[in-house]
Protein backbone atom coordinates (compact mmCIF):
# COMPACT_ATOMS: atom_id res chain seq x y z
CA UNK A 1 0.00 0.00 0.00
CA UNK A 2 1.09 3.49 -0.77
CA UNK A 3 1.76 5.79 2.18
CA UNK A 4 -0.04 9.14 2.19
CA UNK A 5 -1.88 8.10 -0.94
CA UNK A 6 -4.64 10.64 -0.50
CA UNK A 7 -2.24 13.59 -0.37
CA UNK A 8 -0.14 12.31 -3.21
CA UNK A 9 -3.07 11.67 -5.55
CA UNK A 10 -4.64 15.04 -4.76
CA UNK A 11 -1.30 16.67 -5.35
CA UNK A 12 -0.90 14.88 -8.67
CA UNK A 13 -4.37 15.87 -9.82
CA UNK A 14 -3.72 19.50 -8.93
CA UNK A 15 -0.36 19.37 -10.70
CA UNK A 16 -1.81 17.87 -13.88
CA UNK A 17 -4.66 20.39 -13.89
CA UNK A 18 -2.24 23.27 -13.38
CA UNK A 19 0.08 22.18 -16.14
CA UNK A 20 -2.70 21.56 -18.64
CA UNK A 21 -4.68 24.65 -17.63
CA UNK A 22 -3.47 26.77 -20.59
CA UNK A 23 -4.83 24.18 -23.02
CA UNK A 24 -8.24 23.99 -21.31
CA UNK A 25 -8.51 27.72 -20.91
CA UNK A 26 -7.70 28.40 -24.56
CA UNK A 27 -9.83 25.70 -26.15
CA UNK A 28 -11.81 27.09 -29.06
CA UNK A 29 -10.02 30.42 -29.00
CA UNK A 30 -7.93 30.63 -32.18
CA UNK A 31 -5.21 33.25 -32.13
CA UNK A 32 -5.86 36.25 -34.34
CA UNK A 33 -4.07 35.77 -37.67
CA UNK A 34 -1.55 38.53 -38.40
CA UNK A 35 -2.85 41.57 -40.21
CA UNK A 36 -0.66 42.39 -43.15
CA UNK A 37 -0.98 45.93 -44.37
CA UNK A 38 -0.43 46.83 -48.01
CA UNK A 39 -1.41 50.43 -47.33
CA UNK A 40 1.66 52.34 -48.49
CA UNK A 41 1.78 55.34 -50.84
CA UNK A 42 3.57 53.42 -53.61
CA UNK A 43 1.33 50.34 -53.46
CA UNK A 44 -1.79 52.51 -53.43
CA UNK A 45 -0.65 54.11 -56.68
CA UNK A 46 -0.26 50.76 -58.46
CA UNK A 47 -2.96 49.82 -60.96
CA UNK A 48 -2.25 46.16 -60.50
CA UNK A 49 -1.27 45.26 -56.98
CA UNK A 50 1.14 42.48 -57.86
CA UNK A 51 4.47 41.72 -56.19
CA UNK A 52 7.38 40.48 -58.30
CA UNK A 53 5.99 36.94 -58.06
CA UNK A 54 2.60 35.60 -57.01
CA UNK A 55 1.44 36.37 -53.48
CA UNK A 56 1.42 32.67 -52.56
CA UNK A 57 4.99 32.27 -53.78
CA UNK A 58 6.20 35.37 -51.97
CA UNK A 59 4.47 34.33 -48.77
CA UNK A 60 6.09 30.90 -48.64
CA UNK A 61 9.35 31.41 -50.51
CA UNK A 62 10.53 34.96 -49.83
CA UNK A 63 13.14 33.80 -47.34
CA UNK A 64 14.70 31.31 -49.76
CA UNK A 65 14.48 33.90 -52.50
CA UNK A 66 16.25 36.56 -50.45
CA UNK A 67 18.87 34.03 -49.42
CA UNK A 68 19.58 33.29 -53.10
CA UNK A 69 19.56 36.97 -53.94
CA UNK A 70 22.18 37.82 -51.37
CA UNK A 71 24.57 35.23 -52.78
CA UNK A 72 23.88 36.24 -56.36
CA UNK A 73 24.33 39.95 -55.67
CA UNK A 74 27.18 39.88 -53.21
CA UNK A 75 29.18 36.94 -54.45
CA UNK A 76 28.33 36.62 -58.15
CA UNK A 77 27.77 40.26 -58.94
CA UNK A 78 24.36 39.67 -60.53
CA UNK A 79 21.96 42.44 -59.61
CA UNK A 80 18.95 41.78 -61.84
CA UNK A 81 16.21 39.30 -61.02
CA UNK A 82 14.14 38.02 -63.89
CA UNK A 83 10.73 37.00 -62.60
CA UNK A 84 8.70 34.10 -63.95
CA UNK A 85 6.79 36.60 -66.09
CA UNK A 86 10.08 37.76 -67.66
CA UNK A 87 10.14 41.19 -65.96
CA UNK A 88 13.43 42.54 -64.61
CA UNK A 89 13.87 43.75 -61.05
CA UNK A 90 16.88 44.91 -59.06
CA UNK A 91 17.77 42.33 -56.43
CA UNK A 92 17.86 44.71 -53.51
CA UNK A 93 15.93 45.06 -50.29
CA UNK A 94 16.59 48.78 -50.06
CA UNK A 95 16.09 49.67 -53.70
CA UNK A 96 13.33 47.26 -54.61
CA UNK A 97 11.37 45.59 -51.78
CA UNK A 98 11.24 48.59 -49.45
CA UNK A 99 10.21 50.93 -52.27
CA UNK A 100 6.72 49.43 -52.05
CA UNK A 101 6.79 47.83 -48.61
CA UNK A 102 7.82 50.94 -46.74
CA UNK A 103 5.81 49.90 -43.68
CA UNK A 104 8.05 47.34 -42.00
CA UNK A 105 6.17 47.35 -38.69
CA UNK A 106 2.79 46.66 -40.34
CA UNK A 107 4.07 44.35 -43.07
CA UNK A 108 7.25 42.41 -42.28
CA UNK A 109 7.00 42.55 -38.50
CA UNK A 110 3.35 41.53 -38.23
CA UNK A 111 4.05 38.05 -39.61
CA UNK A 112 7.52 37.69 -38.12
CA UNK A 113 6.21 38.52 -34.67
CA UNK A 114 3.25 36.15 -35.07
CA UNK A 115 5.53 33.30 -36.16
CA UNK A 116 8.15 34.29 -33.57
CA UNK A 117 10.96 34.40 -36.12
CA UNK A 118 13.72 36.93 -35.68
CA UNK A 119 15.50 37.41 -39.00
CA UNK A 120 18.74 39.35 -38.56
CA UNK A 121 18.35 41.15 -41.89
CA UNK A 122 17.51 44.34 -40.00
CA UNK A 123 20.83 44.39 -38.15
CA UNK A 124 22.29 45.90 -41.32
CA UNK A 125 19.52 46.50 -43.85
CA UNK A 126 17.67 49.73 -43.31
CA UNK A 127 13.99 49.27 -42.69
CA UNK A 128 11.52 51.63 -44.30
CA UNK A 129 14.19 53.55 -46.16
CA UNK A 130 15.99 54.48 -42.98
CA UNK A 131 12.96 56.07 -41.38
CA UNK A 132 12.97 53.69 -38.44
CA UNK A 133 16.53 54.54 -37.44
Amino acid at each position, binding site marked *: MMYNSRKIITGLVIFVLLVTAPFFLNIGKADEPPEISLDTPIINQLDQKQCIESTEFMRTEHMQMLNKWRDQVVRE*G*QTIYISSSGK*EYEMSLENNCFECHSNKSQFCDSCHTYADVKPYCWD*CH*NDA*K*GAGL
Partner: protein
Amino acid sequence: MDRRDFLKLAAVVGIGGTLAFEGIDKLGAETIEAKRANHTLQPKHWGMVIDIGKFQNAEDFQRVADACHQYHNVPVIDNPNHEVKWIWQEDFEHTFAELESRYLSEEIKTMNYPVLCNHCENPPCVRVCPTKATFKRPDGIVAMDYHRCVGCRFCMAACPFGARSFNFYDPRPFIDRVNPEIPTRTKGVVEKCDFCVERLDKGLNPLCVEASHGGIIFGDLDDPDSEVRQVLKENFFIRRKVELGTGPNVFYIFRGGEDIA
Protein backbone atom coordinates in the same frame (compact mmCIF):
# COMPACT_ATOMS: atom_id res chain seq x y z
CA MET B 1 -11.68 9.50 -94.60
CA ASP B 2 -10.23 6.03 -94.59
CA ARG B 3 -8.07 4.56 -91.87
CA ARG B 4 -4.82 5.18 -93.73
CA ASP B 5 -5.49 8.93 -94.23
CA PHE B 6 -6.54 9.31 -90.63
CA LEU B 7 -3.25 7.79 -89.39
CA LYS B 8 -1.24 10.10 -91.70
CA LEU B 9 -3.10 13.16 -90.48
CA ALA B 10 -2.64 12.12 -86.87
CA ALA B 11 1.11 11.68 -87.41
CA VAL B 12 1.46 15.12 -89.06
CA VAL B 13 -0.54 16.88 -86.35
CA GLY B 14 1.33 15.03 -83.60
CA ILE B 15 4.84 15.75 -84.91
CA GLY B 16 3.98 19.31 -85.91
CA GLY B 17 2.43 20.05 -82.55
CA THR B 18 5.37 18.65 -80.61
CA LEU B 19 7.84 20.70 -82.64
CA ALA B 20 5.79 23.87 -82.28
CA PHE B 21 5.53 23.57 -78.51
CA GLU B 22 9.19 22.67 -78.10
CA GLY B 23 10.12 25.67 -80.22
CA ILE B 24 8.00 28.01 -78.13
CA ASP B 25 9.48 26.64 -74.93
CA LYS B 26 13.00 26.99 -76.26
CA LEU B 27 12.36 30.54 -77.43
CA GLY B 28 11.12 31.55 -74.00
CA ALA B 29 14.06 29.88 -72.31
CA GLU B 30 16.51 31.50 -74.69
CA THR B 31 15.31 35.04 -74.08
CA ILE B 32 15.49 34.58 -70.30
CA GLU B 33 18.96 33.00 -70.65
CA ALA B 34 20.06 35.85 -72.91
CA LYS B 35 18.76 38.38 -70.42
CA ARG B 36 20.66 36.64 -67.62
CA ALA B 37 23.86 36.55 -69.70
CA ASN B 38 23.63 40.31 -70.20
CA HIS B 39 23.82 40.83 -66.48
CA THR B 40 26.73 38.55 -65.61
CA LEU B 41 30.03 40.12 -64.68
CA GLN B 42 32.24 41.05 -67.60
CA PRO B 43 35.89 40.28 -66.86
CA LYS B 44 37.66 43.52 -66.08
CA HIS B 45 40.57 44.64 -63.99
CA TRP B 46 39.63 47.66 -61.97
CA GLY B 47 42.50 49.90 -60.94
CA MET B 48 42.96 53.33 -59.42
CA VAL B 49 45.53 56.06 -59.91
CA ILE B 50 45.93 58.72 -57.22
CA ASP B 51 47.55 62.00 -58.15
CA ILE B 52 49.30 63.08 -54.98
CA GLY B 53 49.69 66.59 -56.37
CA LYS B 54 45.94 67.07 -56.01
CA PHE B 55 45.96 66.25 -52.30
CA GLN B 56 47.65 69.24 -50.78
CA ASN B 57 45.56 70.33 -47.84
CA ALA B 58 43.31 68.77 -45.24
CA GLU B 59 40.22 69.91 -47.13
CA ASP B 60 41.12 67.75 -50.15
CA PHE B 61 41.32 64.66 -47.98
CA GLN B 62 38.24 65.51 -45.98
CA ARG B 63 36.07 66.07 -49.05
CA VAL B 64 36.94 62.65 -50.48
CA ALA B 65 36.67 60.78 -47.18
CA ASP B 66 33.36 62.44 -46.31
CA ALA B 67 31.84 61.57 -49.69
CA CYS B 68 32.83 57.94 -49.24
CA HIS B 69 32.02 57.54 -45.58
CA GLN B 70 28.67 59.31 -45.67
CA TYR B 71 27.49 57.32 -48.67
CA HIS B 72 28.60 53.98 -47.23
CA ASN B 73 27.25 54.62 -43.72
CA VAL B 74 30.69 54.41 -42.15
CA PRO B 75 30.40 55.23 -38.44
CA VAL B 76 32.36 58.15 -37.02
CA ILE B 77 34.19 56.86 -33.95
CA ASP B 78 36.85 59.11 -32.50
CA ASN B 79 38.79 56.54 -30.50
CA PRO B 80 41.62 55.51 -32.88
CA ASN B 81 41.54 51.97 -31.50
CA HIS B 82 37.93 51.56 -32.58
CA GLU B 83 37.65 53.86 -35.58
CA VAL B 84 36.27 52.65 -38.91
CA LYS B 85 37.69 54.03 -42.14
CA TRP B 86 37.55 53.20 -45.83
CA ILE B 87 39.73 55.99 -47.23
CA TRP B 88 41.89 58.23 -45.09
CA GLN B 89 45.22 60.08 -44.97
CA GLU B 90 48.48 58.66 -43.79
CA ASP B 91 51.95 60.21 -43.37
CA PHE B 92 54.89 59.32 -45.60
CA GLU B 93 56.45 56.84 -43.23
CA HIS B 94 53.28 54.78 -42.98
CA THR B 95 52.37 55.04 -46.64
CA PHE B 96 55.70 54.29 -48.27
CA ALA B 97 57.72 52.80 -45.42
CA GLU B 98 60.27 51.18 -47.77
CA LEU B 99 61.08 54.47 -49.49
CA GLU B 100 62.21 56.15 -46.29
CA SER B 101 65.53 57.91 -46.75
CA ARG B 102 67.21 60.67 -44.88
CA TYR B 103 68.00 62.44 -48.15
CA LEU B 104 64.36 62.68 -49.17
CA SER B 105 62.98 66.19 -49.60
CA GLU B 106 61.31 67.61 -46.55
CA GLU B 107 58.20 68.36 -48.60
CA ILE B 108 57.66 64.72 -49.59
CA LYS B 109 58.40 63.51 -46.07
CA THR B 110 55.95 65.80 -44.35
CA MET B 111 53.12 65.35 -46.84
CA ASN B 112 50.08 63.20 -46.23
CA TYR B 113 48.82 60.62 -48.70
CA PRO B 114 45.36 59.23 -49.36
CA VAL B 115 45.26 55.49 -48.65
CA LEU B 116 42.60 52.82 -49.05
CA CYS B 117 42.23 49.13 -49.82
CA ASN B 118 44.57 48.23 -52.69
CA HIS B 119 42.36 45.46 -54.10
CA CYS B 120 45.48 43.30 -54.47
CA GLU B 121 46.17 40.72 -57.16
CA ASN B 122 47.03 38.15 -54.48
CA PRO B 123 45.06 39.42 -51.53
CA PRO B 124 46.38 37.95 -48.26
CA CYS B 125 43.10 38.82 -46.55
CA VAL B 126 41.26 36.48 -48.92
CA ARG B 127 43.76 33.69 -48.30
CA VAL B 128 43.36 33.78 -44.53
CA CYS B 129 39.59 34.27 -44.32
CA PRO B 130 38.19 31.06 -42.83
CA THR B 131 34.64 31.60 -44.12
CA LYS B 132 35.37 33.09 -47.57
CA ALA B 133 33.57 36.20 -46.37
CA THR B 134 36.17 38.21 -48.25
CA PHE B 135 36.83 37.11 -51.80
CA LYS B 136 38.14 38.36 -55.10
CA ARG B 137 35.58 39.06 -57.78
CA PRO B 138 36.34 38.30 -61.45
CA ASP B 139 36.68 42.04 -62.05
CA GLY B 140 39.50 42.28 -59.50
CA ILE B 141 37.56 43.82 -56.62
CA VAL B 142 38.32 42.33 -53.23
CA ALA B 143 34.79 42.24 -51.89
CA MET B 144 33.27 41.59 -48.49
CA ASP B 145 30.25 39.40 -47.84
CA TYR B 146 29.20 40.81 -44.48
CA HIS B 147 26.67 38.01 -44.08
CA ARG B 148 29.48 35.51 -43.73
CA CYS B 149 32.00 37.49 -41.67
CA VAL B 150 32.44 35.94 -38.23
CA GLY B 151 34.67 38.74 -36.96
CA CYS B 152 37.83 36.67 -36.45
CA ARG B 153 39.98 39.57 -37.76
CA PHE B 154 42.53 37.29 -39.46
CA CYS B 155 42.16 39.53 -42.53
CA MET B 156 43.10 42.59 -40.48
CA ALA B 157 46.25 40.85 -39.31
CA ALA B 158 47.05 39.73 -42.86
CA CYS B 159 46.51 43.04 -44.63
CA PRO B 160 49.83 44.91 -44.88
CA PHE B 161 48.04 48.17 -45.62
CA GLY B 162 45.82 48.43 -42.55
CA ALA B 163 42.88 48.84 -44.88
CA ARG B 164 40.39 46.95 -42.74
CA SER B 165 38.39 48.11 -39.74
CA PHE B 166 36.52 46.11 -37.15
CA ASN B 167 33.14 47.10 -35.79
CA PHE B 168 33.66 46.97 -32.07
CA TYR B 169 30.23 48.56 -31.56
CA ASP B 170 26.90 48.60 -33.27
CA PRO B 171 27.75 51.27 -35.86
CA ARG B 172 24.27 52.79 -36.14
CA PRO B 173 24.46 55.20 -33.18
CA PHE B 174 27.69 56.56 -34.68
CA ILE B 175 26.17 57.35 -38.07
CA ASP B 176 24.94 60.89 -38.31
CA ARG B 177 22.55 60.44 -41.20
CA VAL B 178 21.92 56.95 -42.54
CA ASN B 179 21.96 56.63 -46.32
CA PRO B 180 18.87 54.47 -46.86
CA GLU B 181 20.19 52.99 -50.11
CA ILE B 182 23.13 51.22 -48.49
CA PRO B 183 22.92 48.76 -45.59
CA THR B 184 24.88 49.58 -42.46
CA ARG B 185 27.18 46.98 -40.97
CA THR B 186 26.65 45.28 -37.65
CA LYS B 187 28.72 44.79 -34.52
CA GLY B 188 31.41 42.15 -34.98
CA VAL B 189 32.16 42.36 -38.71
CA VAL B 190 35.17 43.71 -40.55
CA GLU B 191 34.64 46.31 -43.25
CA LYS B 192 36.65 48.12 -45.90
CA CYS B 193 36.54 49.93 -49.23
CA ASP B 194 34.65 48.04 -51.96
CA PHE B 195 35.51 50.33 -54.92
CA CYS B 196 31.80 51.25 -54.86
CA VAL B 197 30.75 47.97 -56.54
CA GLU B 198 27.09 48.91 -56.62
CA ARG B 199 27.95 52.13 -58.46
CA LEU B 200 30.25 50.30 -60.89
CA ASP B 201 27.41 47.89 -61.66
CA LYS B 202 25.38 50.91 -62.73
CA GLY B 203 28.23 52.28 -64.84
CA LEU B 204 29.16 55.05 -62.39
CA ASN B 205 32.61 55.90 -61.04
CA PRO B 206 33.47 55.36 -57.37
CA LEU B 207 32.51 58.31 -55.17
CA CYS B 208 36.06 59.21 -54.19
CA VAL B 209 36.85 59.65 -57.89
CA GLU B 210 33.97 62.07 -58.28
CA ALA B 211 34.80 64.00 -55.11
CA SER B 212 38.53 64.24 -55.85
CA HIS B 213 38.22 66.90 -58.61
CA GLY B 214 40.51 64.87 -60.89
CA GLY B 215 42.85 63.72 -58.15
CA ILE B 216 41.79 60.10 -58.52
CA ILE B 217 41.48 58.32 -61.84
CA PHE B 218 39.67 55.00 -62.10
CA GLY B 219 39.24 52.45 -64.85
CA ASP B 220 39.92 49.11 -66.47
CA LEU B 221 43.62 48.21 -66.37
CA ASP B 222 43.08 45.49 -69.00
CA ASP B 223 41.93 48.07 -71.53
CA PRO B 224 45.01 49.74 -73.10
CA ASP B 225 42.89 52.72 -74.16
CA SER B 226 41.43 53.41 -70.72
CA GLU B 227 42.25 56.64 -68.92
CA VAL B 228 44.10 54.84 -66.12
CA ARG B 229 46.38 53.10 -68.61
CA GLN B 230 47.07 56.38 -70.43
CA VAL B 231 47.94 58.10 -67.16
CA LEU B 232 50.20 55.22 -66.12
CA LYS B 233 51.93 55.32 -69.51
CA GLU B 234 52.67 59.02 -69.22
CA ASN B 235 53.71 59.22 -65.57
CA PHE B 236 56.16 57.55 -63.25
CA PHE B 237 54.16 55.76 -60.58
CA ILE B 238 54.74 53.94 -57.32
CA ARG B 239 52.63 51.46 -55.45
CA ARG B 240 52.65 50.70 -51.74
CA LYS B 241 54.76 47.82 -50.46
CA VAL B 242 55.13 46.03 -53.84
CA GLU B 243 57.98 43.98 -52.37
CA LEU B 244 55.42 41.98 -50.39
CA GLY B 245 54.06 40.54 -53.62
CA THR B 246 50.40 41.25 -53.00
CA GLY B 247 50.11 43.17 -56.28
CA PRO B 248 48.32 46.36 -55.21
CA ASN B 249 46.01 47.91 -57.81
CA VAL B 250 46.21 51.46 -56.46
CA PHE B 251 48.92 53.53 -58.15
CA TYR B 252 50.38 56.83 -56.96
CA ILE B 253 51.67 59.47 -59.34
CA PHE B 254 53.19 62.87 -58.61
CA ARG B 255 51.76 65.25 -61.15
CA GLY B 256 51.07 68.95 -61.16
CA GLY B 257 53.70 69.73 -58.56
CA GLU B 258 54.45 73.03 -60.29
CA ASP B 259 50.82 74.15 -59.91
CA ILE B 260 51.13 73.99 -56.17
CA ALA B 261 54.57 75.55 -55.79
